[in-house]
């Protein structure tokens, strides 16, 4: 599949400028349904109606407004909305670099792969230097009338830019209560470590499939051919054990046995 660039910009900080192209890192695999009128299978449209008389309001007459805390509505004109839009720009400003991992995953929204635009040398050098320094950059840019913040990251010579949530949208971990509970024994920690060890491996994302999506596509394909789809479901149960130590021990035994027989 050929990759098409979505946008072009220039990464800038200090004396550095690196022209880059944006490529989407994600592919939408969701199954999209159209909403149809049941009797004639016509795709329905949506319209905005005035609740007082049920009459549709044409698009060009629709106004925008914000509801205030007092329950009132302030109307905002199209001109006022335009005036709030950021200035168009190709700059991707790096406001600072921080140690890799400083930006918690909670902030991540949407990933982009970056490729060089024109001269590749700066791109290659920046990627290498970021990796060497184990740093990531905080970026700010305007893309298609919207301002974004992001994390600039490098791995295996490849630059990535992941858009971030705004600071008001990230829940502070201090709000999550930490419970103490009883102390555990050194032996329990040891067994837990052994169990993690026994279950350790590489991250292989291809080992997992979205089964629901697959079943829905099966259903669609079956019905498209005029056939009857057979619905079925799997079940599973698991046993319960008593104390933490016993459970860890039994878990270890089981995992080890499974490994041997595999």
């Amino acid at each position, binding site marked *: 599949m050929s990759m098409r660039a979505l946008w072009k910009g220039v990464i800038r900080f200090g004396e550095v400028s690196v022209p880059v192209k944006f490529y989407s890192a994600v*592919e939408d695999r969701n199954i999209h349904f159209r909403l*149809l009128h049941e009797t004639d299978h016509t795709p329905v449209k949506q319209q905005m109606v005035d609740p007082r008389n049920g009459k549709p309001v044409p698009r060009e007459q629709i106004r*925008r407004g*914000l509801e205030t805390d007092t329950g009132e509505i302030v109307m905002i004109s199209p001109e006022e909305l335009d005036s709030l839009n950021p200035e168009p720009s190709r700059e991707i400003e790096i*406001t600072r670099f*921080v140690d890799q991992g400083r930006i918690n995953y909670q902030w991540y929204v949407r990933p982009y*792969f970056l490729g*060089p635009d024109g001269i590749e040398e700066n791109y290659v050098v920046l990627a290498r230097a970021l990796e060497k320094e184990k740093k990531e950059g905080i970026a700010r840019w305007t893309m298609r009338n919207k301002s974004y913040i992001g994390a600039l990251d490098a791995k295996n010579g490849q630059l990535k830019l992941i858009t971030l949530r705004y600071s008001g949208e990230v829940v502070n971990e201090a709000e999550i209560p930490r419970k103490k509970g009883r102390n555990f024994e050194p032996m329990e920690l040891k067994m837990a470590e052994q169990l993690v060890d026994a279950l350790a491996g590489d991250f292989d994302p291809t080992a997992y499939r979205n089964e629901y999506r697959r079943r829905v596509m099966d259903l669609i394909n079956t*019905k498209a051919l005029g056939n009857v789809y057979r619905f079925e479901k799997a079940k599973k149960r698991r046993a319960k054990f008593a104390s933490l130590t016993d459970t860890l021990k039994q878990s270890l035994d*089981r995992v080890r046995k499974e490994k041997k027989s595999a």
Partner: protein
Amino acid sequence: MPEQEDKELRRRSIWSGTLTFGMVSIPVVLLPGQTSQRVRLRMLSPDGTPLARRYYCPAEDRPVEREEIIRGYEIEKGKFVTITEKELESLQPEKSREIDLRRFVPVEQIDPEFLDRAYFLAPVGDSAKPYRLLTETMEKAGKAGIATFVMRDKEYLVAILAENGLLMAETLRFADEIRSSEVPGIPADRTIDSNRLKAMVKEIRNASADEIELNELKDIYTERLNELAEQKRAAGQDLISSPEREKESGHTGNVIDLMQVLKRNIEKEDSKEPAQSEKEAGDSLDDLNKTELYNNAKQLQISGRSTMTRQELINAIRNA
């Protein structure tokens, strides 16, 4: 009081179940790691009345109710396979209250493009000890647990990460949702002039800081929009007092502005006061199917229920 705290945690949670590690079961709840603060601009009539969204059939040129609408998958232009809600419901994954950790992987192997949404896992009941044991073990080993689990009728791939004594659940994108990272123009193996690399490292160090600065991560657009709205409100300019639309009945009863419902939910989530709700019994609503939820909403006379999704129904019932 721990029971009180658990009750509060369950109320805030969007999923509850057990984290399974070998044969150790750890009862936990999932709490959102993110909140939406986007201001939603309402659509208004020229005189400032909030508009409602409605479906209509262009062939018959008339409005249609939610009950008259079915889903169709377009197999070729203008040709649809219709799928009922019931069919989709029977394809939904088996309800399960378990995140079974059968795989532990080095944290650094999970590339950022896989990360979708973040949740906190908090222990409930008697599970503080095994929770801490697992967290400490994972943190020490630098490992993340990988599992699939079912939440709100959907199956998720999830990475469980331990950080600062807390477990986080990060839902992951499936492999086929990630594009190959081989973007055009990156030379496979290129020797780099060591002076250029040195110069770049120097520039990076010059621009480096120890901490992130939250001020750089503010939503400036929303702030400016709110300021503008506040100025206009204070000056009484373009100000319309909001009619109590919910009280209206009859013909408009089945016309609903989803934004309104969503907004109210967000407000509820944000407010410090616990929601006054009879449905506090934890997550039982998550176990109901859409029809049951609909009937529930009907009893509670929640308006707009016929156009709500399953989750919107749950939220509306919780907040009723």
